[in-house]
């Protein structure tokens, strides 16, 4: 109940006392009993047009259009409700509301809370509305774009002049459209001469990308969401789609095959609740689990011999390797009883269409690539590829992580190419009309090495776009120190309030989702359209425009003459994709995407399959030169920082709720979303651990690792295993504790497991 008493305006009092009714008796009755009036009318709903059903009178649309959501990689279609402008300009009044698109093939009329509130977060008071430049006293002051661009150019060019072109790096993102990230990568590398740039996708999907590239020859998640419905056995590994991808879970709930659902996760998550068998394996023991499973299948002769013989390479070596992974051994490593392992194997064996799905539990690991490949290997040896309801399927994180993997021009050359290959460089140079010598002939440093480069003084200038490393980077206490060593830090973001923007020397105000056009690629390789349906506040500009301004001011604008607007850039991307596995040169234009409800790659100019939902590898041909997928494997390694001694707990991290997105720069701006999750950090503690340490529910406790110490409220639950703690990643405290360990192949940070201790006394 709220306590504030707002003074009543006389006009309202008068209205309340002037009842609606006919005649004197009617009015007198209305004075006593008012069934209608101004307050009732505020909440009236009227028959909606455009097939939307009833909608509140306060924001009836004049027209609608569809755009893809800009949070996660599910890529849901949203009907944006538009009002016309004051003089009847069509759509000129901008978006007033949204509803999930009934027909969109991804979400079938549904959205998660983040999507429903996607427009609400655009109105936040902490939107960056003008460039901000640090003055002599270290205080950020608004400046105009002209000054901001001059400063950007002068400072970065000065650094490059003194320390070499490589001394300035950029951090891209999976949160902007492909056209923008491609232009960024092109301007930075071909125009500004930067060599090093990586994306925040390093934190979420690098492992999957590397695993696919090595195993099947291209970064190609093979599935379509229909596979959630067509599979009769779904194995979720380190994935909690109920909270992380609720709309993918919608598709699982629509599965009519009475599927077996196996969930491999140390925690009893919402998804585990819906499992037919929850396998609470010890953190990071999933690699051993899949080796053991493979061995059991091989020993029992349950191998798809034809598929293995015709479409894979290295099976014999793999079979020999996994021989050591008996259920006795795997039981020891996973903590799962041997009979449970056998039960899992038999359940999988009994089904026809087995699909395996993984997310961050696998990717964010010290051995993520090999773990992902253990999953891929298992699906290969059972021939579970290319058929409906099968596949080794990575569920991606950010809305455009998949676009970033192909077109960010950071650690890979545009279109899934290789900087180190002269032919690839020549091809890109030709297609972009860029001098070939402007294309670096070596890979960029990965995100962790860029950070290390700053520490070593090799990187002196950093340009951060639409990501928030000061919150999200692993072991972030150290990062604060690292970022403070930079000579010049530029942050380009929608909000001036992110942890990173607050310490920037220069903040460039960016338009957000809904304020610009572009395309994103979702987890099932579907290219979807974003649309400008809101005016950006103040001087904020689409990132695309900002990159163009920077190119112009830098003096390399003419290289990007063809990139006039996002749709023109899209045609360039089509050209870059042609002939690659991700070929989508057959897509006509934005309107085609809009009409088709998004289009999955591949969609080549010649012979494209027009089906709405398509999967890869139906012909068993993989992208390696020999057409075969490889079995890749390695002895599992122990946790880099195992629990024990002074730090007896294993600290797990992950998503807290479906209403929170990453570092909360956007989701914390919606009052409705804020109601749906705890407002400050909490730690999940097992009931017996809490009892042992005399920690009462809701008590403020201290969680410490070798790297930091935080206060958090205890949520006592047996959903987290004994000996483990869980911290949601959305709170700025969490990454003060995580340990800077990385997968050796993907360089992805291992957020999910480090050693920690718990103190009942928070002081």
């Amino acid at each position, binding site marked *: *109940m709220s306590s504030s008493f707002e003074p009543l305006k006389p006009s309202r009092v008068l209205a309340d006392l002037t009842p609606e009714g006919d005649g004197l008796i009617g009015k007198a009755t209305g004075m006593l009993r008012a069934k209608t009036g101004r307050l009732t009318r505020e909440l009236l709903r009227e028959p909606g047009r455009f097939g939307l059903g009833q909608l509140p009178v306060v924001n009836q649309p004049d027209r609608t259009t569809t755009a893809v959501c800009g949070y996660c990689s599910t890529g849901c279609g949203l009907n944006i409700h538009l009002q016309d402008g004051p003089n009847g300009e069509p759509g000129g009044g901008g978006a007033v509301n949204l*509803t999930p698109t009934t027909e969109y093939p991804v979400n079938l009329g549904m959205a998660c809370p983040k999507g429903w509130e996607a427009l609400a977060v655009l109105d936040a008071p902490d939107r960056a509305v003008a460039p901000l430049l640090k003055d002599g006293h270290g205080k950020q002051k608004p400046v105009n774009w002209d000054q901001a661009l001059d400063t950007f150019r002068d400072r970065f060019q000065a650094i490059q002049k003194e320390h070499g072109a490589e001394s300035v790096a950029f951090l891209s993102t999976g949160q902007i459209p492909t056209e923008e990230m491609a232009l960024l990568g092109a301007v930075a590398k071909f125009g500004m001469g930067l060599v090093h740039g990586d994306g925040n996708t390093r934190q979420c999907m690098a492992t999957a990308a590397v695993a696919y590239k090595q195993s099947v020859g291209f970064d190609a998640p093979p599935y379509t969401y229909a596979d959630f419905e067509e599979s009769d056995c779904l194995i979720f590994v380190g994935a909690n789609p109920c909270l992380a991808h609720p709309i993918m879970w*919608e598709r699982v709930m629509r599965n009519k095959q009475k599927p077996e659902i196996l969930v491999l996760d140390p925690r009893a998550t919402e998804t585990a609740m819906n499992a037919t068998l929850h396998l609470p394996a010890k953190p990071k023991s999933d690699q051993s689990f899949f080796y053991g499973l493979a061995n059991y299948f091989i020993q029992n002769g349950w191998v798809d011999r034809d598929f293995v013989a015709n479409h894979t390479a290295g099976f014999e070596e793999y079979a020999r390797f996994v021989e050591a992974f008996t259920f006795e051994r795997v039981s020891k490593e996973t903590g799962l009883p041997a009979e449970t392992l056998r039960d899992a194997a038999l359940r999988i064996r009994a089904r026809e269409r087995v699909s395996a799905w993984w997310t961050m539990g696998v990717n964010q690991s010290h051995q993520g690539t090999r773990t992902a490949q253990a999953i891929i290997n298992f699906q290969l040896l059972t021939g579970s590829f290319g058929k409906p309801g099968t596949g080794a399927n990575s569920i991606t994180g950010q809305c455009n992580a998949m676009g970033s993997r192909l077109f960010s021009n950071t650690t890979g050359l545009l279109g899934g190419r290789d900087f180190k290959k002269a032919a690839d460089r020549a091809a890109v140079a030709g297609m972009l009309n860029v001098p070939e010598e402007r294309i670096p002939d070596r890979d960029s440093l990965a995100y962790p090495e860029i950070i290390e480069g700053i520490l070593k003084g090799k990187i002196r200038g950093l340009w951060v776009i639409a990501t928030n490393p000061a919150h999200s980077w692993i072991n972030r206490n150290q990062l604060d120190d690292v970022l403070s060593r930079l000579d010049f830090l530029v942050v380009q973001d929608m909000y001036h309030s992110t942890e990173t923007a607050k310490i920037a020397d220069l903040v460039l105000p960016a338009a957000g989702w809904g*304020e610009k056009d572009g395309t994103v690629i979702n987890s099932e390789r579907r290219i979807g359209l974003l649309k*400008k349906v809101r005016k950006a506040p103040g001087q904020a500009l689409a990132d695309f425009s900002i990159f163009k301004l920077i190119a112009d001011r830098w003096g390399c604008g003419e290289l990007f003459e063809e990139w006039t607007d996002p749709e023109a850039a899209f045609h360039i991307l089509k050209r870059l994709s042609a002939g690659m596995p991700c070929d989508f040169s057959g897509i006509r234009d934005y309107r085609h995407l809009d009409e088709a409800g998004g289009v999955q790659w591949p969609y080549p100019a010649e012979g494209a399959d027009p089906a709405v939902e398509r999967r890869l590898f139906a012909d068993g041909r993989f992208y390696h030169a020999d057409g075969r997928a490889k079995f890749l494997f390695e002895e599992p390694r122990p946790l880099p920082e195992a629990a024990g001694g002074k730090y007896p707990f294993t600290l797990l991290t992950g998503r807290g709720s479906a209403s929170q997105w990453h570092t909360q720069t956007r989701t914390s701006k919606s009052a409705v979303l804020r109601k749906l999750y705890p407002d400050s950090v909490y730690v999940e503690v097992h009931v017996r651990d809490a009892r042992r340490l005399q920690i009462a529910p809701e008590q403020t406790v201290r969680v410490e690792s070798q790297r930091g110490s935080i206060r958090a409220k205890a949520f006592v639950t047996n959903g987290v295993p004994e000996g483990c703690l869980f911290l949601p990643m959305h709170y700025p405290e969490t990454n003060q504790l995580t340990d800077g360990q990385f997968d050796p192949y993907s360089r992805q940070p291992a957020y999910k497991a480090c050693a920690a201790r718990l103190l009942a006394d928070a002081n």
Partner: protein
Amino acid sequence: MSASVQYALPILGGPSAQGGPPDELSAAPAEQGIDLIAALLAQQADLTAVERFSQQHAEADRPGQSRYYQSLLPATAPGPGQQYGFEVDLDRCSGCKACVTACHSLNGLDDGEAWREVGLLHGGGQAAGGSSGGASGLPVLQHVTTACHHCLEPACLNACPVDAYEKDPVTGIVRHLDDQCFGCQYCTLACPYDVPKYHAGKGIVRKCDMCADRLADGEAPACVQACPHEAIAIRVVDRDSVIEHAEANAFLPGAPNPDYTLPTTVYKTNRVLPRNLLPADYYNVRKEHGHWPLAIMLVLTQLSVGAFLVELILRGAAGGRALPDPVHAFFSLAWGLLALQASTLHLGRPHLAFRAAIGFKHSWLSREIVAFGLFAPLAMLYAGLTWWRPEFYERSEWLPQTLGWAVVGAGLLGVFCSTMIYVVVRREFWNGPRTTLRFLGTTVVLGLAVTLLTGTLSANLFPNAAAYGHDLTRPLAIALAAAAACKLIYEVAVFQNLRDLQFTAMRRTAVLMTTVLRGPTLTRFVLGTLGGVVIPALLAVGDPAANSPAALYAAAAAFLLTLGGELAERYLFFSAVVRQKMPGGMTV
């Protein structure tokens, strides 16, 4: 885009072939760069390009979403003995909470406002494969989506003093009439499911109406439309089966007992829910709103009634020799009128206070207002006569007594109604004995305290007129000390609940009073002890003459401190109570 601003990129000097910064900085004329900025800013502000994509959504007869929700709506309208109810399939609720945001968006609600909430029940045992011990079985996380239950016996409707609720005779939907509401918020206390929410900005309560007009059009409510997992449906329920469910307490673990309001929502599951399921916010203790206007109103009406009561008893004891004392009458009346004034401050729309008696048939709040509405003019008449026509009392044998009893009778009826307001809403801290003892205790303690004060004041002002025939300072002081001590001891007893093994409502109240409400609690007991017990005891021991300044000062101090203590007690009455509610989400 086709409608975008066309601009030409300035052609600049050729970049250096090695990459890196060009040698010549800013080779372009500055104006060109500024033109580009202006062009891009203009382009950013232009929204009309979206027009070319907006044609595809043609007019449609049926809402597109109906293809998904058709099976979630009842095929027929409710018959006799039936109504609509929400049906929640717990096995399908995954905790995404899209229903909450959809309710907010599709109903045009204010920032942060939504009529659906999602709670969490958790419990069960250690996961399989972990070490053994503790509760058996698997851990359980069960999200629970909840909105208005459109009860057969809606507590909100019964509580409402202005009939701002109506229950549709056919659909059974409990609808709030926003323009009828005057913002007393009594329904927010009465509903055991915490459904009606007060909107301070508008001064009224708003709540879920099951999207009645959508249902009337064959459309699904917002939450039903938006659940990705089809966990929420509208069904026709038999009222008899609702009653049977309530009798068996088969509503939902962790929810209030359904026998109070007969909620019609059906929570169904094929799972066996473990017995140790607790709401995720079970251990959360949060203070409630203190409702200062109500606290003041209650304490002061009780003071006023108590003052008249004590006087009447004393005059009765004096065998009819004593006449009503103008000072006492003034004090008694003034506090009472102040109380009634304070109560209107509580209303979100005080200008509609005249509607307050409409719900007399069912609302204890209406009855309270009627009773005090009777008490006020009687008390004014009684007091007015003491000032302007004291001869009436001198002439008549029966008038003073009769009028006095009428005033006290109406007042006690008012106090009784006040008590019932809180007793009927079934909060543990407000149960019958607890509320009755508090409210009557305040009546007696403050009645004695104010009489002690007026006695000494009157004796000091008019040394010749002994109000009740003889000096009553000492007996009044002793009575006050005894009454106040009893009340304080009774109140202290709440801390016994700190030893409850379970986290009961009363233990929560005690925890609140020792933690977040520590300050008000200390204030209550210090003021109450000083003013109610210590000073009266000293007064009784010292026994100064009523007309001495010492007696007056002591009595004034005792009264003010006691009054302060009682106000703090009443603040705690509101703020330390534990509301009933549906299982909440994580609040840590």
